[in-house]
């Protein structure tokens, strides 16, 4: 198998960050992707993988909620809490995974599924930043600009992403691919600037690394859609 490792140059690896004295590690080693393996849509055990969402773009706003494998995940989630309200955060995340964002209608459906008042669910959902109340691009790019990253040039990284995607913060790019936002501390302060794109962190990101990261994301998206086309044919 070809080495997945990208050579480290000037703090600009474009993937999981500076490996320092651990240069032998591959991207898969650092991210743990081999260990994690593939997860079926219905999740595996109720204790673990049912409760976290797939954070990938491409939700369908008109898709039905909680059918098929999603119904299985909903039931597994419910089995882990002493009451239905306890399941609210993971179920909101599940709804967002299916539809891409949480419209008032989606929140009302979640409320109905859990026996809660729609206004209550909206009150909770609007408290948390990771629930998108409006659609976002296929790739949600979150650039940490808090102090530890800021000291190391995070503002320039944010500007580079905005310029390269031709967007203002929070906007969806013309091709529907990108939404770039400023994020609060992502908890990767030793690897500035930390950037989260959907389910992955990109670390030690410099403004110069931005085109290469976007190129990689575009290539991956193209590979995903051609795989989907093959499956469909």
């Amino acid at each position: 198998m070809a080495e997945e490792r990208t050579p480290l140059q000037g703090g600009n690896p474009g993937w999981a960050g500076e490996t320092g004295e651990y240069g032998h590690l591959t991207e898969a080693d650092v991210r743990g992707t081999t260990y994690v393996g593939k997860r079926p849509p219905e999740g595996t055990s109720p204790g673990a993988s049912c409760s976290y969402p797939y954070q990938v773009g491409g939700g369908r706003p008109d898709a039905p909620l909680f059918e098929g494998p999603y119904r299985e995940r909903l039931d597994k989630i419910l089995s882990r809490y002493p009451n239905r309200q306890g399941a609210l955060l993971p179920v909101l995340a599940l709804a967002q995974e299916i539809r891409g964002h949480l419209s008032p209608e989606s929140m009302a459906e979640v409320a109905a599924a859990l026996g809660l008042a729609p206004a209550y669910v909206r009150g909770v959902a609007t408290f948390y930043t990771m629930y998108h109340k409006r659609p976002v691009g296929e790739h949600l790019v979150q650039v940490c600009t808090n102090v530890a990253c800021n000291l190391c040039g995070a503002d320039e990284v944010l500007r580079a992403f905005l310029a390269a995607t031709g967007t203002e913060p929070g906007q969806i790019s013309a091709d529907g691919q990108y939404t770039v936002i400023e994020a609060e501390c992502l908890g990767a302060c030793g690897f500035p600037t930390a950037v989260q794109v959907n389910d992955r962190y990109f670390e030690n990101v410099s403004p110069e690394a931005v085109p290469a990261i976007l190129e990689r994301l575009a290539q991956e998206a193209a590979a995903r859609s051609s795989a989907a086309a093959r499956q469909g044919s």
Partner: protein
Amino acid sequence: MAYPYRDEREVRILSAHFGDPEARTLAGWRQRGGYEALGQALALSPEQVTEIVKNSALRGRGGAGFPTGLKWSFLRNDGRPHYVLVNSDESEPGAFKDRELCRWTPHQLLEGALINAYAIRAQHVYIYMRGEFFEPAQIVARAIDEAYAAGIAGPDVLGSGVTIDVTLHLGAGAYICGEETALMNSLEGRRGQPRVKPPFPAVFGAFGQPTNINNVETLCTVPHIIRNGADWWRSIGTDKSTGTKLFNMSGHLVRRGNFEFPLGFNMKELIYDVCGGIRDGRSLKAVIPGGSSVPMLAAHELDIPCAYERVATAGSKLGTASMIVMDDRTDIVKQVRRMVEFYAHESCGQCTPCREGTAWLARIMRRIEAGQGTEADLALLVDLGKNMTGTTICVLSDSAAAPVLSSLAKFKDEYLALIGRAAPVAAAV
């Protein structure tokens, strides 16, 4: 081995297997002695396990430094359902240790959490991880699956007859959920607003039941203490700050990352020797020693041992030992403004001093940064900061005031220089 750099002076206990992908797996973890401590604990009574942790004088690694064993001992054998919550909501600017522990050694965390659950007679562990930690969450989820399949979690833990379930619960983006009672509300499907204490979690915690909540790093130390004994842990560190600690080093350092040292290690040595000093041959201006919520220290204040009691004497706090190091080019006013904006964004809005205070601090800081501040603004910042300290349900408000007050005390010149640039007020009169 700390990650991504190591130093020969380190004492590597928690971080011994960072950077080793094999240690992530159940088989690899067992080869490295994993789950022996859980077996040892299950052979003791819950009270005996708590006693060992108490005797180790381990202090909670989430920032407050509260004695862990004492906290465990608050729970009674009362027949009510008990819960263990793992606080993996790491979002204090500067802190990045729990993420490393979760992604490199998920079974270390699970083992500590299971021992914790046994010691307080909890049948359910919730690991509350911040939603952004999607990659570590997948790793921890895989470890939970492995633990269930191997009979380490679930209805009959290691054949002991004890039931301990483990559930991974992801947050959804709110700094305040790292506060223990806000975390409980969030777990229950509410807004993450801190609760008034008392009642304390040991009496009325998650879902209204007795609850014990511990930080990831705290729980990761527990298996080592059970295996090697309380005396061993107490032989490391200082009298009041026992054992080792992960130091999360960020900012303008030559070598950034996590390093594990006994508490009491000299801060200056840590910054200048272990981390190689300041990048680009610059000099040091300021250090925030324990995450953005603690007062900053100036360059001449760093010759102190990194122990809870000693950093407190120096006028700051060790907190999470997350050190943000700033070089001489740093614009202190800009960085304080950025921190204050963070707290304003993250305030849950319950208490007036915090809701209003953080917003006003941010507004005044922006005004000063833009060169439109006046000297009266500086007095106003101090006044606001003092009114925000010790006046609210949780300490987010105090945390927002800390960088403002400490920077005004230590780097007032930088504020005055910006005010000096402003158009003379008198001209308008």
